[in-house]
């Protein structure tokens, strides 16, 4: 299945109550698939093409505020527009899943794949101190599985979850195993607006606190939640790290290409390993720190000008050199040039 279509099918199967979105290349197949499939008939899931990404994310806010499983998808310029709403969702502590099928920027950029929205996703692209849980699929299978995982985490922590995909994963076709249809949840949450219950206080969903003392309490509560997320939800994969003398760190589609470079390096006799963060926030800091103490150098490979490398440097904390190799503007690095970068920047460097 095509990545975007598989993700759309996963949304239906994960028991989503609603999808609101606005078309943008390279992710328009998500809403096209949903409109074709008409999940209202299958599960009762509502699908609406909004007038803008701004409206779409605010529809998500409304549905999520009712305790419903709501998902939206877009690509980089559209996700910038959603950032206002995501900040409000984080502030009001509502659960939702936001998919970014990243294309290259800045500005209108190009419709070709990129990983240049790492900072925006991981550091909180909207205003205020907040974090999204960021899942980075490297395969169509993972982008399917992360829809389900994304809803689970979103509701566990009442926090927005971003699936940070890219144009490669969105557009490519791969074999995928779809999970069975899950029923739409009937659970009612005490924080959700579903109509005031007799004898109970009315519920309001808000991110507003006019008093600084109260807003600080909100911030402290959010920070405590983020520490909890950092403790429980780090996910990553390691490849051939046991005897590694050099280390690649790469995520998403770039990690697949880098894995090939790692195999080629091994054939040449270099003992190279690879860490692939599956959660970009929370970031697998500890394992990278430990590896940093054992290897001679680390190369991050990204389809951007060097974003995750900053978090890798913080994790390695000066124990060995950390360099970055990237292609950007929609260009995809080849295994050969990654290997060459390793030889030049790390092994020979």
């Amino acid at each position, binding site marked *: 299945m095509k990545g975007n279509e598989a993700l759309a099918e996963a949304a239906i199967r994960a028991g989503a109550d609603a999808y609101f979105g606005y078309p943008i290349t390279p992710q328009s197949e998500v809403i096209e698939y949903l409109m074709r499939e008409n999940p209202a008939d299958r599960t009762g899931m509502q699908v609406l093409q909004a007038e803008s990404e701004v409206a779409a994310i605010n529809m998500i*806010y409304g549905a999520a505020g009712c305790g419903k499983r709501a998902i939206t998808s877009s690509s980089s310029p559209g996700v910038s527009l959603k950032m206002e709403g995501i900040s409000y969702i984080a502030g009001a502590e509502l659960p939702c899943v936001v998919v970014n099928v990243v294309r290259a920027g800045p500005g209108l950029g190009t419709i070709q794949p990129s990983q240049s929205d790492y900072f925006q996703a991981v550091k909180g692209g909207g205003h205020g101190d907040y974090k999204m849980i960021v899942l980075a699929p490297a395969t169509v299978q993972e982008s399917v599985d992360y829809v389900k995982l994304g809803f689970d985490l979103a509701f566990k922590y009442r926090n927005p979850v971003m699936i940070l995909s890219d144009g490669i994963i969105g557009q490519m076709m791969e074999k995928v195993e779809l999970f069975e249809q899950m029923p739409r949840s009937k659970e009612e949450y005490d924080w959700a*607006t579903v*109509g005031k219950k007799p004898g109970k206080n009315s519920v309001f969903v808000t991110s507003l606190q006019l008093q600084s003392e109260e807003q600080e309490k909100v911030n402290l509560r959010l920070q405590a939640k983020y520490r909890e997320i950092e403790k429980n939800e780090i996910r990553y994969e390691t490849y051939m790290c046991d005897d590694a003398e050099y280390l690649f760190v790469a995520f998403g589609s770039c990690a697949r290409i880098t894995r090939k470079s790692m195999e080629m390096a091994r054939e040449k006799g270099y003992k190279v390993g690879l860490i692939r963060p599956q959660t970009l926030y929370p970031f697998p800091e500890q394992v990278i720190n430990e590896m940093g103490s054992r290897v001679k150098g680390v190369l991050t490979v990204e389809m951007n000008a060097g974003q995750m490398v900053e978090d890798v440097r913080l994790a390695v904390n000066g124990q060995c050199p950390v360099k970055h190799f990237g292609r950007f503007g929609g260009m995809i690095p080849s295994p050969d040039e990654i290997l060459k970068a390793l030889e030049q920047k790390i092994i020979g460097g």
Partner: protein
Amino acid sequence: MSENNMITPENLVYEKTKVMTDRVLHYCPGCGHGTAHRMLAEVIDELGIQGDTIGVAPVGCSVLAYYYFNVDMQEAAHGRAPAVATGIKRVLPEKYVFTYQGDGDLAAIGTAETIHACNRGENILIVFINNGIYGMTGGQMAPTTLPGMKSSTSPRGRDVATMGNPLKITELIAQLPGTYFVTRQSVHTPGNVRKTRRALKKALEYQKLNKGTCFVEIVANCPSGWKMTPVQSNKWMEEHMFPFYPLGDIKVPEK
């Protein structure tokens, strides 16, 4: 006879609706928001839909409306209330959903959300408080500020040549096939309060029919923003606002 002895059921002529909470309103003396809140709350009470109503508060003076309405509510980002209400109504179609928005929220930053929600015919009630000024942020020019009207960002009066014309958004959205009932009212006299109440009640009754968006504009005063006493502001509203924003039904359901 002491005052307490007078409080008996047989002496009761009027009581505060339970759809308003006991919180003290933060609105300025003489402001129309309190009456508008109360009319909407009374109608929700009268229709017996307190437990089936979900409101959306805007950004502006009524940002804290969820403290006062005793129904479940969501606080939206500036201008986004109709999109938030769309999200709510789409997942809970059997509930009554309303937004309560001011002129900056509804007719400036949220114009797209307003027009598209109305054009889709979302089965929601939009209550639009039009006082021609930004009250919350300190009296700046609104999209509905009258030509020549002074505000902190039009200190010499609104010059339409450079600042544009006031937007009659209610007439505009009445043109859209998605709207079912569009009316303009006020709450500055007992007679007008009663008319507003009737309009709000009709709008919520229509919501049950799933016929489209109902839109109730309430032209209101802003004594603080207009720098007038409440009495002066009501007179000024009659003399200046109503000729530009005439009261009455703009679109009524076909019989």
